[in-house]
């Protein structure tokens, strides 16, 4: 099968949706002539024009608010927030408007909108451009949260996100944009709430998201040589969260380690291990482990950044600590 990048996979879906659905439009900062800070919308402004690919002022509040209002009257906006670090400039819109509008008004409207944004460190972009904040809004009922780790998943999940009639937060990891992988030419959707087993194994379950999936895969190869067989599960969506797949794996391995780039404390991993403790306690033979970024802002200097962000060594140690 052909190989394309994570960026190209996302681009294909946006291009396709703009082509087939007149209600779909894009809005965001510098998504026009430039094609977005990470190039995902390259060429779309040239192809579809100002009306469909809306280059906005520097106004996160207005971007999220306008997307929400437009969705409430029948459009299907796909907004881009350049970095997830800027999401909370629009905190009220997200938390008090978008997330609440349908429920609070007694189900009177649908909000088919997607907010694409960028997470992740690895580029020495420092504290305000490197965060993985996917857990924050997963705490707010009213959003679906998607966090793809491969080009294949990115394409199928973005398709589903745009087809969904609810607010969807779509987190793209900046280190993955250039990653290539097999992606079919045709369109396909990957349902939300269905985890993917990225590697089959029988000794320990690793639940990982975004770039941590790839780090965990490399660690698994290393551990294989030591005779430890790691199963790696990527939930792909945090809301809804596919606990069935995770629990089925734990029934087999009896051990679980959650790995994410978000900060450790109160991160998505806390939710996953809490649910495992609650729903799979009887199958567990070892303490539940979490690996996440150290609880400090992401520093700039490359050696400090990589110290703070989970590395293969951290994942390796966490897994070893439960299997030994």
């Amino acid at each position: 099968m052909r190989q394309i990048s994570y960026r190209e996979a996302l681009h294909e879906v946006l291009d396709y949706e703009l082509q087939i659905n007149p209600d779909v439009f894009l809005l965001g900062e510098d998504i026009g002539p430039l094609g977005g800070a990470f190039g995902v919308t390259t060429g779309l402004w040239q192809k579809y024009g100002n009306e469909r690919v809306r280059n906005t002022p520097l106004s996160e509040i207005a971007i999220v608010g306008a997307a929400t209002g437009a969705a409430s009257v029948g459009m299907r906006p796909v907004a881009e927030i350049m970095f997830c670090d800027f999401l909370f400039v629009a905190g009220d819109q997200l938390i008090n408007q978008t997330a609440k509008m349908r429920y609070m008004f007694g189900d009177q409207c649908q909000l088919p909108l997607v907010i694409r944004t960028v997470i992740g460190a690895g580029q020495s972009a420092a504290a305000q451009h490197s965060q993985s904040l996917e857990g924050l809004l997963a705490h707010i009922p009213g959003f679906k949260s998607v966090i793809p780790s491969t080009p294949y998943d990115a394409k199928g999940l973005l398709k589903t996100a745009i087809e969904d009639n609810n607010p969807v937060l779509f987190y793209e990891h900046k280190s993955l944009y250039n990653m290539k992988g097999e992606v079919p030419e045709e369109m396909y959707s990957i349902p939300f709430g269905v985890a993917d087993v990225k590697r089959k194994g029988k000794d320990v379950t690793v639940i990982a998201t975004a770039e941590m999936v790839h780090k965990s895969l490399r660690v698994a190869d290393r551990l294989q040589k030591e005779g430890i067989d790691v199963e790696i599960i990527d939930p792909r969506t945090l809301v809804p969260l596919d606990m069935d797949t995770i629990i089925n794996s734990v029934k087999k391995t009896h051990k679980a380690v959650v790995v994410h780039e978000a900060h450790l404390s109160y991160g998505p991993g806390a939710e996953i291990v809490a649910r495992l403790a609650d729903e799979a306690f009887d199958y567990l033979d070892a303490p539940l482990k979490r690996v996440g970024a150290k609880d400090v802002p992401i520093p700039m200097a490359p050696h400090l950044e990589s110290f703070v962000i989970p590395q293969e060594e951290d994942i390796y140690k966490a897994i070893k600590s439960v299997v030994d």
Partner: protein
Amino acid sequence: MMNKDFAGEMLTTMIKIRLFEEKAVELFAAKELPGWLHSYIGEEAVATGVCLALNPGDYISSTHRGHGHCIAKGVSLKAMMAELYGKKTGYCHGRGGSMHIADFSKGMIGANGIVGGGIPVATGAALGSKMKKMGKVSVCFFGDGASNQGAFHEALNLAAVWNLPAVYVCENNLFAETTPQSEHQHINDIAQRAVAYGMFGDIADGMNVLSVYEKAKLAADRARNGEGPTLLECKTYRYRGHWEGDPQPYRTKKEIEEWKKKDPIRAFQQYVIENRLLTESEIEKATHDIQAEIDEAVVYGRKSPLADVQEAVCSLFV
């Protein structure tokens, strides 16, 4: 433009808002209504003048002080009252209450508990209308206090630069909760801020329904004709506290009494009688009918069932 029917609609809309609010205040004081209450009494001419200048399908969005806007847009008093009671038959099945009434079927896309929070959303409705070529105008009501929020700035700038069919109606009642306008912004006329966005700014006498109507009509027409958004400031005054229970240390009784002399309902009543548009007995009859409708809404609210608790956890997503 001013014929008997239209004058009657203007007057009865204002009276309906006043009487509904008086009833709500009474029920709230009697502890029949849960939650909070922000009365619109005194400001009736603004909601009425603006909404009557709109087409039925046009959008409005509102604030914590939103009952007047809803009524002027023609929502059901029964479903509204039931929502104040927190009942299943209310607009939001009891999930919203006084601060969050919406009736999408009437273009009323929601009141808001966050000061300024509705302005970007209303702007989005204008964007949707423009992109879908619906020909609808989106009107956003908010207060003088809200005009200091960042959301106001971002939304108006966006609306201007995208030439959206929006009308931003600032109800300047001279106070943001307990803070007088002179202490929260260094201008008297909020409409001046329109200049900064390159949009049209206008001022209406918010105690005069005809003044509001005239200015709102111009703004709505401009929006509909593709001439862009307007910031329309309506100078008005609320007679009651910011919320029911507000001790109001920030103003004098005398000030309130002075404003009551300009009461928008009394003034317009005088106007329609002097101009022989309506007679006193017609007004009396209409008032009586409105009171009956409100009383019926109260009975409906009281008697309606509560939503099942399971409904509170079943419909987060479509």
